[in-house]
């Protein structure tokens, strides 16, 4: 016997139907939250990729006090604010209605007159492309300058988002320097954790700084600080010692990658910058010894987790 059967027998079919609705409501709320979070993180990555010089000036918040309140993105340098109302539905719940018009116009006034923004946009965010098109036709002429409807796909988890919504994958690849799915998924998890930790207003820089602090290894680096040159002593060592000639060194996302015959060891560039003492250097004469050395230098960062 299922719980629904039990409730139906014990309290009647109407109560069983109510129980089903309560559960459906909870599930829908959960899906709504996932939709909003995915959108927010995708936007954060988009701004960080496209406007790296503005990351301290662009602030993102969820559920601030307002009539269009799900996600708000404010660029303090441009004095511009964009507010999103998210509706993860292909049904009537995602329709542009008179209430939408009213709330959007109120929020527009609040942004211009209370927040003193020069530019304010209100966006109804939907997860159905057809709904976006039908809503576009319903936006009153008087609002068309500042009110829009946008589409963003609903994905049930991070992996589906990475594999479905290519702009996010492209941005994450650029922000981390990695291409492999597990690495991008890790980066996305770090960002999701930081985003979900609070609804407080934070700059995009603060969000990435927090995600960097949570990463062991860190995968986010300020693009302007990117250094793709391996430590000179390491390059020289591999060049000078014949038994190390089969080894390859590269730098990826501020990590030194030492490769040999299918093996790949990585360590933070900073951790490998210091040249070992001459006595220690003399012991690095085989690929295995050098790999072990990289293992040791990688430990300090990883043990902070």
């Amino acid at each position, binding site marked *: 016997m299922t719980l629904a059967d039990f409730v139906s027998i014990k309290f009647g079919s109407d109560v069983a139907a109510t129980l089903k609705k309560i559960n459906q409501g909870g599930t829908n709320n959960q899906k709504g939250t996932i939709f909003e979070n995915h959108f927010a993180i995708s936007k954060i990555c988009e701004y960080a990729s496209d406007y790296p010089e503005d990351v301290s000036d662009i602030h993102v918040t969820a559920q601030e006090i307002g009539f269009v309140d799900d996600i708000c993105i404010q660029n303090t340098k441009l004095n511009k604010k964009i507010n999103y109302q998210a509706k993860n539905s292909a049904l009537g719940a995602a329709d542009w209605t008179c209430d939408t018009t009213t709330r959007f116009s109120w929020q527009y006034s609040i942004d211009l007159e209370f927040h003193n923004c020069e530019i304010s946009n209100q966006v109804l965010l939907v997860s159905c492309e057809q709904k976006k098109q039908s809503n576009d036709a319903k936006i009153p002429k008087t609002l068309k300058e500042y009110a829009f409807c946008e589409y963003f796909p609903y994905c049930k*988890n991070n*992996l*589906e988002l990475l*594999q479905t919504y290519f702009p996010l994958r492209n941005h994450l690849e650029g922000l981390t320097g990695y291409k*492999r*799915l*597990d*690495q991008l*998924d*890790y980066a996305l*998890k*770090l960002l*999701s*954790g930081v985003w*979900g*930790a609070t609804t407080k207003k934070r700059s995009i820089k603060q969000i990435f700084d927090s995600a960097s602090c*949570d*990463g*062991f*290894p860190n*995968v986010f680096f300020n693009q302007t600080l990117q250094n793709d040159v391996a430590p000179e002593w390491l390059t020289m060592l591999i060049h000078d010692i014949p038994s190390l000639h089969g080894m390859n060194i590269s730098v990826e996302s501020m990590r030194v990658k030492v490769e*040999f*015959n*299918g*093996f*790949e*060891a*990585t360590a933070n560039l900073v951790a490998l910058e210091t040249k070992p003492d001459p006595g220690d250097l003399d012991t690095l004469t*085989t*690929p*295995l010894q050098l*790999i*072990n050395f*990289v*293992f*040791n230098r*990688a*430990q300090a960062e*990883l*043990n902070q*987790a």
Partner: protein
Amino acid sequence: MVESREFSSYATASDKEHLRALLNPIQNPGRYKEAMKVLGSSLGEIVGTKVPKGSQCLVVSTAEDADYLSFGVIESLNKEFKTSAAVFWNNHYSLLYKDSVAPIVHQYLQPGYQASDVLVIVKSVISGSCVVRTNILALIESVNAKNIFIVSPVMHSASEAKLKEEFPKQVSDKFDFVYFALDNEKDDATGEVKPGIGGQIYELLGLTGQPARGSYMPDLVRRLAFE
């Protein structure tokens, strides 16, 4: 303690005996390692009966499992199939909120691994989905796998559903879980499956901690990459 355990139809009396040996390691990593190797061998034989003829297998392992459980699996599969090894050093840790991550810090991918069409993901115990999920993600875009076996002596009863839920259907449809025991209990604080494999695998194998945070190099990788 073992009441919350359910055995799969694969588990023979001998397998159950070796599972019991994992629960009584009492400072004897040697015995523990041997039990893991034998369990791996047995799991490998079962997987071998399910792998299509002519397939090429890639056994995917964490560094700590490589010389024991995974070695046994590889040994069994090697009898009938061309088998390669992938070994990952995951840095497994919890984020400040409930989620955990297991980024790969170092790795060994046996040259030619891309030609594999069967992935055999091996883990000494499957509690959450974090490490297994990461290691599958590391390979699904470079290996065209027709089958993905997820192989472990012991799994938590919720792990199969959780892992399937985290992948698109076209990937999770390829999953085939091969295990001997399902445990229902989990330590809320540590996430450790109870009775599971008797505790934390690192200490039980005589390691000082996670291989990614030390200098542990399995003999399997030492032989394949450096000799």
